[in-house]
């Protein structure tokens, strides 16, 4: 019913969400939400993960190693797929084939990244709460995941309908920009505070 009454509902919804996001970024509501999250970050440090992360540096380092390795795997999966979309590599393989292979790797890597990331965040919750770059990383990560599952996946998974070349280039470029920001801001957190 929605398809017939509102044929471009996805585009309209995205435009509304972008307008809402822009309003939120520029309004005082952003600071109010940030303030309201402080108790959550304080609580995170009191959890078992927080206690372990703060007490045993070796455990934190071990988990961080898995976090970084899974980020490397995730980055590799993104790079492979985006290189194909940009026409830079694997041009003899169909885009949906590259997508299928790299997406399964991406999902595994993302799961490990999220689990290990939550553990690490608990150990240094109040530090990262006050780091502006942490919030930008979370924003980029959230947008990157949404971009993969809501934009790339429905467009690339069907072998019968590959997007046009300009759209493939746009998808590959936007994906690289998002994941570059995730990686760079992630390392930035490591060098902050």
């Amino acid at each position: 019913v929605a398809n017939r009454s509102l044929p471009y509902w996805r585009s309209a919804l995205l435009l509304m969400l972008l307008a809402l996001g822009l309003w939120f970024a520029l309004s005082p509501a952003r600071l109010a939400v940030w303030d309201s999250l402080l108790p959550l970050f304080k609580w995170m440090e009191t959890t078992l993960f927080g206690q372990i992360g703060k007490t045993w540096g070796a455990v934190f380092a071990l988990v961080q190693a898995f976090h970084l390795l899974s980020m490397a795997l995730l980055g590799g999966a993104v790079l492979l797929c985006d290189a194909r979309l940009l026409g830079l590599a694997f041009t003899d393989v169909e885009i949906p084939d590259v997508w299928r292979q790299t997406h399964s790797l991406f999902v595994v890597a993302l799961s490990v990244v999220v689990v290990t990331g939550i553990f690490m965040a608990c150990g240094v919750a109040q530090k990262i709460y006050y780091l502006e770059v942490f919030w930008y990383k979370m924003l980029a990560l959230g947008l990157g995941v949404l971009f993969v599952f809501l934009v790339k996946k429905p467009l690339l998974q069907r072998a019968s309908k590959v997007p046009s070349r300009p759209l493939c280039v746009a998808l590959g470029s936007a994906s690289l920009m998002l994941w570059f920001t995730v990686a760079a801001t992630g390392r930035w957190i490591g060098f902050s505070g």
Partner: protein
Amino acid sequence: MDDQQAADRRARNDLELTAWIACVAVAIGFGVYWGLQIQDVRELLALAYG
């Protein structure tokens, strides 16, 4: 059948338009964010080295 094909085509066009909007929004956000970071670095370098 034709109705179904037309609906599928509209859904596909919608998805592609959504992808274009998302790509443009990401490019603008990326340009603004990293542009501001580079601006900060330039100002710091100017402060440090005149």
